[in-house]
């Protein structure tokens, strides 16, 4: 990859990431009082994270069955209230058990 092209690309990626984060934070300095907007904002984290995860998680690894087992493992661990890192590594370990061991034996 040509270095100048890459460096300017990284600068553009930075701007396209930083500006959507910083500008709304810096520009909105009024207290919102609308009950609708307050409720709307309170649901955003859960809606965003769900939309990012489903269905993308099922194609995040080498195979759909492996990813499905990883998803189930993560769901199980988080239902039991395990910390984030345990859920993340537990899910990955489950995927590896299926894709690295099971599928290579079969």
């Amino acid at each position: 990859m040509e270095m100048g092209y890459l460096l300017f690309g990284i600068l553009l990626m930075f701007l396209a990431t930083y500006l959507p984060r910083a500008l709304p934070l810096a520009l909105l300095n009024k207290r919102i009082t609308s009950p609708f907007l307050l409720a709307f904002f309170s649901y955003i984290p859960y809606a965003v994270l769900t939309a990012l995860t489903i269905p993308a998680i099922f194609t995040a690894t080498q195979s759909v069955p492996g990813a499905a087992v990883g998803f189930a493992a993560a769901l199980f661990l988080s239902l039991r209230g395990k910390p984030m890192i345990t859920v993340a590594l537990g899910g990955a370990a489950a995927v590896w058990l299926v894709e690295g061991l099971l599928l290579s034996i079969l």
Partner: protein
Amino acid sequence: MTLQRADIRRGMRLSVPIALGYFAVSFAFGISAVQSGVPPFLAAFISLTNLSSSGQFAGVKILAAGGAYVELVLSVLIINLRYILMSLSLSQKMIALPRWQKLLLGYGVTDEIYAAAIQQEGDLSFSFFASLIVLPVLGWSGGTLTGALMGQLLPQTVTAALGIALYCMFIAIVVPPATKDSRILKTVLIAAGFSIALTYLPQFSFLPVGWRVILCTLAASSLMALRDVRTLKERRQ
């Protein structure tokens, strides 16, 4: 001053699991960036400047294919549109902070940091949010560098399995509150339903993934908010 020190400690403690998760996820990014032809230290530099998962992955993929800058900016921007919603809601907890502080803190509005911050009671101080960012930035950049330098030592099945770690982090954030609050559970189910529909219905296949995420978020959050407002009105009558 004592109050600020308590804020720093609280922010740091809250961010440890995020930082550890980031290390695992960005490890996979480091590997894939090197495979795309990015030198290891530049891969870490991308992580340090961008501090975003899906945006970075997409951006490097486009750069590796020699894509045009317009395509790069539009794709990354669309994937990152959700941050506008997050920052708007976060701004309500930072009303009192001077603008320059908010411009600094804006750098750290990631999915996980936002989720951790927004669940706090009351307004957020500069020291709290800043200390929430530090360790995850180190984890994210350090994991990238480690993956970029040493990733080739791992079998391919292991690095592929790490691809799921990011989504598992999201699950770990969403599931516990969803089991305690039925409104959150409904939000999750609506968002999941919309997301599956928009992904697999051929009529919507033209939608880039960033738009899909935005549409699902708007739909699920506003449906639930409308419902809340209606219940509130009924109770008043």
